[in-house]
């Protein structure tokens, strides 16, 4: 059973559908006991970094998320991916979950912001199974992005600057774009995450 964290940050029906379409049972929850029983933890989210961390704290989820990330496959999507990092500057400097070292800052580009639309993935050698997605278009909607070390970067997208698109540290993955809105390729990316964490 896959658990999607329910913390009031954006609609997650599409994320739920995406995993259900891959044949998984999915539950949307913030209940600690249910989370402990889950096979995978998915942290979605749309909104601002600070508002999201406030919600996580208010719902007493911070500590359990950090604990769960030690043992279970964990995937952050969009804002959920940004929260994996040490800190973010959206809405004022705010501590994140600090599962992956790095900071989340406004994209320093001359291009239009938000970065909205389909952009191409440039996949690194970090996770070979993701190489299949090199040059594929996926759907992005964001203004802030993660700055982290190359050893955690699975893929980037070029938007005047290199934008961090997929990260991995052990069993913790983060995806900046919206796989659930990225047509068939998005489903394949989620499937590859699920396969990769079985290894």
């Amino acid at each position: 059973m896959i658990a999607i964290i329910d913390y009031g940050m954006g609609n997650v029906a599409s994320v739920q559908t995406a995993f259900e379409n891959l044949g998984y049972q999915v539950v949307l929850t913030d209940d600690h006991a249910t989370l402990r029983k889950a096979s995978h933890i998915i942290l979605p989210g749309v909104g601002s970094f600070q508002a999201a961390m406030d919600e996580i704290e208010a719902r007493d989820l911070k500590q359990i998320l950090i604990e769960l990330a030690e043992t279970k496959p964990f995937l952050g999507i969009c804002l959920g991916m940004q929260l994996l990092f040490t800190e973010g500057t959206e809405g004022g400097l705010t501590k994140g979950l600090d599962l992956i070292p790095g900071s989340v800052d406004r994209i320093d580009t001359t291009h239009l912001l938000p970065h909205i639309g389909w952009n191409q993935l440039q996949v690194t050698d970090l996770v070979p199974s993701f190489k299949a997605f090199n040059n594929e278009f996926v759907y992005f909607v964001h203004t802030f992005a993660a700055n982290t070390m190359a050893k955690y970067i699975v893929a980037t997208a070029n938007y005047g600057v290199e934008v961090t698109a997929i990260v991995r540290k052990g069993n913790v993955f983060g995806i900046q774009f919206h796989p659930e809105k990225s047509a068939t390729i998005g489903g394949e990316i989620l499937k590859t995450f699920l396969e990769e964490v079985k290894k």
Partner: protein
Amino acid sequence: MIAKRIIPCLDVKDGKVVKGTNFIGLRELGDPVEMAKTYSEAGADEIVFLDISATHEARETIVDIVKETARNVHVPFTVGGGVRSIDDMTRLLQAGADKVGINSAAVTDPQLITAGATRFGSQCIVVAIDAKKVADRWHVMTHGGRKDTGIDAVEWAQEAEQRGAGEILLTSVDTDGVKNGFDLALTEAIVKVVRIPVIASGGVGHPDHFAEVFDATNVSAGLAASIFHENTYTIQAVKAACKAKGVIVREA
């Protein structure tokens, strides 16, 4: 590199897709969810639903359409038409819409843009501007392009951005329905003064019209309705025409 987006627009009335926004002689074209699914599978980068239902009861049906679309369509979609309050936005976004489009209500109450962007994030808020050439500038039109507000469209676009709009959906009342191509002068005038993505709309009669607006301006996306619905041209044909002119598009 980021791709230019090709967006089919579905005008929905009383739960059915209809042809055109002209209220006289509407023709039913089909089921919105089915059509959205077909277009997304054919490579549409996004879908826009424009609810032109006249009654409050009929507007309730759009919420069910949004829920079904969220379950069945795996590309982003926007819902506009009759969005007048934060409550309207909440209902549509909670039902699964990725973005909401606000038009007349934003003109009446610009604070609605600010409130929506603060509550849901700028990426959810598309400000739709219907513009018409009046002397040497463009005026913002409301009520389906029939009422001249006297507001300067270029200044309104800038205000919409400052108030937190994530995108602008720009329709030329002059070229809409004419099928002779997008309004390049209007599109350029808006694109050059804002730093958020602009979607051009109104006037498409041929796939080359998309390539033309992408070549002439820095617009992020092009929207059309009738050329897709009448099966005159497919999404693939539009993308092939763009690609032939060197425009970067996503091939599905």
